[in-house]
């Protein structure tokens, strides 16, 4: 008989479920217990993924526009990340066919470049004025 779930997979699923409940119930913007970005605490500037907890909370409450304005980079990266996860998990013919493109180094270097560009842009007065 095939085992239904590996213990590590079970642990991941349970952990993910608990995290989803936590981020639905607790608002990271107002709770002091939710972890803060060490870079932001030390320098006062936003890091590229600052806002990820608030984005998760807002998305789960259907506030997509507020979430998008908080960190558009995450929404830009999400499809790329989903594609990589799909290629990693699935081994069907489609996944095998797109893997060379999804895991191509040009895409990965583009991600790194966007990461640093977004990091600079989000800390400029231009961006703060744009978002209001």
């Amino acid at each position, binding site marked *: 008989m095939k085992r239904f779930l590996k213990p590590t997979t079970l642990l991941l699923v349970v952990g993910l479920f608990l995290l989803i409940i936590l981020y639905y119930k607790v608002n990271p913007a107002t709770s*002091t*217990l939710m*972890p*803060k970005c*060490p*870079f932001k605490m030390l320098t006062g500037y936003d*890091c*590229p*993924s600052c806002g*990820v907890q608030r984005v998760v909370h807002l998305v789960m409450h259907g506030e997509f526009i507020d979430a998008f304005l908080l960190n558009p980079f*995450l929404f830009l*990266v999400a499809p*790329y*990340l989903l594609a*990589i*996860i799909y290629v*990693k998990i699935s081994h069907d013919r489609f996944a095998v066919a797109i893997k*060379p493109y999804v*895991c*191509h*180094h040009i895409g*990965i*270097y583009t*991600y*790194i470049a966007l*990461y640093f560009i977004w990091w600079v842009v989000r800390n400029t007065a231009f961006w703060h004025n744009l978002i209001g």
Partner: protein
Amino acid sequence: MENTNPTNNQPPLAPNNYLVWAILATILCCWPLGIPAIVYAAKVDKLWYAGYRNEALAASNNAKKWTLIAAITGAVVVVLYVIFVFVVGIGVAAEAASYSDYYYY
């Protein structure tokens, strides 16, 4: 590893490039340590399909190493933060209790 000819028609699968974990590390844990993980992850497939299989395996190991470093550092920072908040919280609560005649929080 018996066949290292890059022109082989049926190449074996490339080693794990840990790209998912590397990118998640830059988003979720600790950005400076996730970047080398991504750079190594980018090299894995590139080197493998160019025929440099030993180098690809080395890059795969490096990607794994840096992803683990980033994840562990991120976890440590979160745990330290929560401990810090509890300690400060207990301190503030004790301080507030000593002034409880004047302040009601």
